[in-house]
């Protein structure tokens, strides 16, 4: 190593810095499409809108007074309709239970419990929803 020319080391160093920078940028470009795709797949896979739709239609039923005439019949028909439609068109098993005598209440509301069960083979979802009813 007696006559190593050590001039121009800044140039060499800048070369390494620029090359490393390009490498990191390339990694970022490489990851970007993967992020978009896996996010989209995750969103498509979870049936968020179906579950929200089910809850949207069941909450008003859960708010009905326990003494409403024909309540059980109405509930059973709705359950049968939704189960058949859900199985046929969304490939999902769904069921629900409504408890109107939970005993939970505060000054203004009593809370009925709505249990939603949903399973489409990929997503299993169970929810306990406390539906407020104005006292």
């Amino acid at each position, binding site marked *: 190593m007696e006559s190593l020319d050590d001039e121009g080391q800044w140039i060499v160093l800048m070369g390494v810095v620029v*090359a490393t920078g390009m490498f990191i940028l390339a990694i970022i470009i490489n990851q970007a499409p993967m992020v978009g795709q896996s996010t989209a797949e995750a969103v498509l896979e979870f049936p968020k809108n179906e579950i929200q739709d089910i809850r949207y239609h069941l909450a008003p039923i859960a708010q009905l007074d326990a003494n409403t005439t024909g309540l059980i019949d109405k509930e059973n028909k709705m359950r049968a309709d939704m189960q058949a*439609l859900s199985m046929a068109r969304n490939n999902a098993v769904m069921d629900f239970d409504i408890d109107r005598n939970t005993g939970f209440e505060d000054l203004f509301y009593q809370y009925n419990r709505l249990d939603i069960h949903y399973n489409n083979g990929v997503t299993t979802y169970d929810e306990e929803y406390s539906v407020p009813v104005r006292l």
Partner: protein
Amino acid sequence: MVMNDEGQLYTIEGITAGIIMLLTAYVVFSTGFVFTPGDAHIADMQLQQLGYDALLVMDTPGSIEDDKSRLQELIMTNDQAAFKDEFNMLLQKGTGTTYMDDPAGFIIDERTQWNATIYYRDTDHDNLLHSYAFGNSTRGGEFVTREPEISVTRYVHLSGEPSYLPVDVRNIMDNREQMVLLEVLLWRA
């Protein structure tokens, strides 16, 4: 024999630079630049959310005094022409930041095609599901060939049997309070 050991740093630098360039080239070429069928997920997700949102908007009552949503009204009167107009309008709305065909109405996207069907359960004949068509977009009825579609659905609560139904549907459908399922197939033409 005396080995010439000058310029060793240059040799190491050359090898390092070569490795970095090879790695960079590898990473760049393995990047998913090509829009593969797998990437269609992204467009599908956006289209699916758009469809669900449009149906949710239509199935929300206009005010707290309204006990019926617009979608319930349209299904109860079997008003397919009005459904087509209003559903199309919701699908075609843009933010105003992209190219607009109609700046006043913020209409940007006229490519999305759809075909709607209503499914209902019959209890007094065969206890099976039946269906009837509930309209389609301008080119949504042509089923000879088209892009792959995605499905969006919405339960709709009906207080009875819709009026103005075709005779064969009217004969089967129950006249009772019931849940039906509106299924819309959406695709970009």
